[in-house]
Structure formats: structure tokens, C-alpha cells
């Protein structure tokens, strides 16, 4: 019964979600293996962000099942906090805590949630900041940082919890083009180190280079999926082709 890394680390089976009368997800199923980089693309309103939010239980589902490392996510007996320690999420609006410095933002969760030793956490936080190429900005407040810098601090903040899976919800959508690159480089390095990443993104170039598997969603269903080479070169479904012709 225990989960092994031979099994998918994240598994969605026939997930359905409706907000009131409006059905956002109409039966989503896919598996993610450990270490894979999954990119979910599609037009707005297709349910991409909702999928991510269902995986870390920010949003409950109506039907179907989602398992993370073998554990059913929407099991009422599950302690959500335990799940969140395994699954980290980075948002489009970065959502850094404005009243704390960059370093403190990274340190807060390990100290208060994981109850780790303050000195050790500080060392690790400094390393993480260096890793996202913001060494020297430890004592800056979010208001003093650019959008791209804030987003990288947000990534470091999630990494401080040592998650097994990282979810990225259109993290570059609110940034201007020059700063998008610095964030994508950070994510790419993460992926190359073996972190399992699920990204909802509009960055097709990034998806093509770094992704292991691309999923195209439209109106709540997965229309087509495949490895990037095949997917971008020869998409089969007409909807996919139309979408790709508009964004590429």
C-alpha cells in the first residue's frame, strides 16, 4: 500500500468540479511521474488553474479522485497541512507578505509550521535566496523588489518547505517580458535538479524546451496531450491546432 516512486507521484482520475451551476472541470485524468515537468496550456476559462488548486486542496472537487504520493487528497480525514508540506504552490500574484523582508518571508513557514531551528532555517533561507539569484536582497521588503524578483522570492519561499512537488500557476503572466526570463531560468534549474513540476503557463517556448509532457485543456477537458516534440510539431485535434496557431 505504501507509495513507491515507480508509481505516479500525482494521479488524477476523472476529476469533476463545478462552481455553482458552472462546471469547470468535466472529467480530468492524468498521471505525473516523479521528476517530470508537466505543462498545462489552454485558453482562459478552460480550468487550468482550477486543476492546480484541486491538487493541493485549496479547492474541493465534486467527483473523481486525486492522489498525491498515494494519498487521496480529498479524503476528509486527511490533514491538509501535511499535504501542503509536500506540495508547494507559487501564484501569479506572488502574494509575498508585505510586512516582512524577503529573508523573513522565506523563513516564516519553516519556523512556524515545521518548527525547525531558527539558525538552521536562516542558513537554508540564505542559500535559497542565492539559488534564485537574489543574494544581497535578504533585508529588502517586497515593496522594494521588482515583479520578477518578488516572484523568485515566492519560489524560494515554497522551496523552503522542502516539497516533493511544485505547482506553478501562470507565474510569469503578470511580469513584463524582460523579467519573465529570469523566473523561467529559475524554474528550469529546479526541473533539472529533479523536482516534479506542474506548470500552468502561456510560455510555449519554455514548455517546448523544459517540459516532459504537455496537456492542452479546453472547456474543462483534456483535449490532447503528448511529449513536446510531437505535440508542437504535429498536433492531431483541430482545437489544439487552432490554439497553437494563435499563440505560436
Amino acid at each position: 500500500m505504501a507509495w513507491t516512486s515507480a508509481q505516479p507521484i500525482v494521479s488524477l482520475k476523472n476529476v469533476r468540479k463545478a462552481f455553482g451551476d458552472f462546471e469547470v472541470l468535466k472529467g480530468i485524468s492524468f498521471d505525473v511521474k516523479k521528476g517530470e515537468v508537466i505543462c498545462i496550456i489552454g485558453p482562459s476559462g478552460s480550468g487550468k488553474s482550477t486543476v492546480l488548486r484541486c491538487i493541493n486542496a485549496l479547492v474541493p472537487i465534486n467527483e473523481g479522485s486525486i492522489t498525491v504520493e498515494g494519498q487521496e487528497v480529498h479524503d476528509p480525514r486527511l490533514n491538509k497541512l501535511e499535504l501542503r508540506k509536500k506540495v508547494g504552490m507559487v501564484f501569479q500574484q506572488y502574494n509575498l507578505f508585505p510586512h516582512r523582508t524577503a529573508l523573513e518571508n522565506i523563513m516564516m513557514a519553516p519556523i512556524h509550521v515545521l518548527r525547525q531551528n531558527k539558525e538552521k532555517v536562516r542558513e537554508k533561507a540564505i542559500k535559497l535566496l542565492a539559488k534564485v539569484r537574489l543574494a544581497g536582497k535578504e533585508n529588502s521588503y517586497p515593496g522594494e523588489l521588482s515583479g520578477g524578483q518578488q516572484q523568485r522570492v515566492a519560489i524560494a519561499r515554497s522551496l523552503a518547505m522542502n516539497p516533493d512537488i511544485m505547482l506553478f500557476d501562470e507565474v510569469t503572466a503578470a511580469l513584463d517580458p524582460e523579467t519573465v526570463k529570469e523566473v523561467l531560468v529559475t524554474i528550469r534549474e529546479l526541473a533539472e535538479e529533479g523536482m516534479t513540476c506542474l506548470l500552468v503557463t502561456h510560455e510555449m517556448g519554455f514548455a517546448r524546451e523544459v517540459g516532459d509532457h504537455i496537456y492542452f485543456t479546453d472547456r474543462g477537458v483534456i483535449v490532447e496531450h503528448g511529449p513536446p516534440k510531437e505535440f508542437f510539431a504535429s498536433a492531431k485535434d483541430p482545437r489544439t491546432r487552432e490554439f497553437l496557431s494563435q499563440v505560436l
Partner: protein
Amino acid sequence: MSAKPFAVLPPAAAPVATPSQWADWGLWDAPKRIFTPRVLVGLVAAFGVCLLAGEAYAQLNGQQRPGVLATIWRWLPLILLGPPGEVGGFLLNILVSFLTMAIGTVTGIILGVLQVSQGLIVRRVAWAVTQFFRNSPWLVLLFFAILLLPFRMNLFGEIVPFPSWIKAVIGLALPIMANIAEVTRGAINSIPTGQWESAESLAFARGQTFRLIILPQCVKRMLPPWMNWYAILTMATTLISIVGVADSMTLTQQALAAEGGRSELLIPMYGMLLLLFFLYCYPIARWTLYLERRYAIVT
């Protein structure tokens, strides 16, 4: 303002001051002085008029007793500090305002947090309590406290006297509690939902989220309306004179009576009382404006 589901309740606290309001008062630059020359001139002029009115009246009626200004000067220590050996007068007004604000703030913040609690019953009860004390006249609540609280209590076997002014503090703390609860709730609701989401994603428990992330950000937003309520409360402390506490209002009236009801003292003495409160509350109002500007929330 979105459509209210239950439209018999007053709307939430007033919005933050807008730049145009400040501009007209010449407050675009940080206030260098609390009392600008114009204000000082106005104050001196107003009080001078009161004194002159008193003197003129005295002259008209041929009174020969000590002058108005001298009389006021004689009574001033009593009205400011109260009878010797006791705390009374204006000092008592200030003391009551401090105590009431302290009690009201603590209970109000708790009540405000309860209003956003996840338990439905807790939320409803907290909301009802807040609305009840917000919409009741302060004087009625004051009478309520004075008449219905015991004048002494049995605490752990000790008999503790419960003097009137303590009961007045409790009576005034009730509406303050409700209004601070509203301010707290408004501040909590103004924190972007993204903060809640990212805290949740980082596995913070709800209590931790409040303590470490939400409430610290609320403090800045709450400060200007909190100061505003303090000013309103200080002015409301004069109500305790109606229920017999020896504050500055009562003592002024007693001083007037002791002077044998000299009519020429009426305007100057009441004028002086108004001046005292003005001197205390006006700087607070200015400081509140300054804080509003400094902490202006860009939405």
C-alpha cells in the same frame, strides 16, 4: 458598496480621506504645526468673545464682584484636576477615556476576529452583539451599566467596591468594543485574498495565519479609524456627568452654582470647557489625518 443582504444596518466605517479634502486645508505638506496661526487666532478670538460677553453682561447689570477672568482662573484647578485628594475633572475625563479605549480595543479586536470566524454560530453571535452595541445610544448603555451593575462585588471572598466611574468605563466600553470590532473586520476584509491563499499553501494553520500575517498588516489600516474613535470617545466621556460622576462637566456646573449663579459667568465658563476639549481633541484629529495620509491604502 455592494448590495447589502440585510439592509437595516448602518454601512461600515467611512472611507479614508481623499487628497482633495486635504488640499483645501493646506495639508498637502506634512503638518508642521498642530495649531496653525489661523487656528490659534480663531481660538483666541472665540474665547476672547466669550470673556467679553461675560464682562459686558456684568457691566450691564452693574455687578461689582471679582472679574470674569479672575473667577475662571480661580476655578480652573478644580475643573482640571478635581477635588484635592481625588481624581476628578478633566483629568478624570482623560483617565476614563484611556481605560475605556484600552478595554474597548482589546474586546473589540477579539469580537472583530470572531466575526470572520469559520464557525457559523460564532460568526452570527458576534455579528449580533456588534450590531446591538453599535446601534444603541451611548447614554442608554451608560445608564444600563450604572443601574444594572452592582455597586460592589464579591470577588474570591473579597468585597470589592465598584464605584460609579468604573461602571461608567464599562458602559462606555461597550459601544467602543462594537465599533472597534467593525473597524477590525473591515481591515481584515481589506487584506487581499492572495495573502490567505499563499499562507494556506505554506501550510500555516488558521490561527497562525491570523497572528503572523493578517493582523500585523491590519494594524496600519486600523490606526486612523481607531484614533478617530478615541477622539469621539473622549468627547463622549462628558456623558458621565449625567450619571453623577465628578468630571469636568459636573465640576463646572458646581462651580457656577457656587458662584451664586452669576449669569455673566455662564458663557465664559462653558466656553472654557469647550476650549479645554478642543485643545485636546483637535490635535488628535490632525494627527489622525496625518496617519490616514501616511497609511493611505491604494486599492
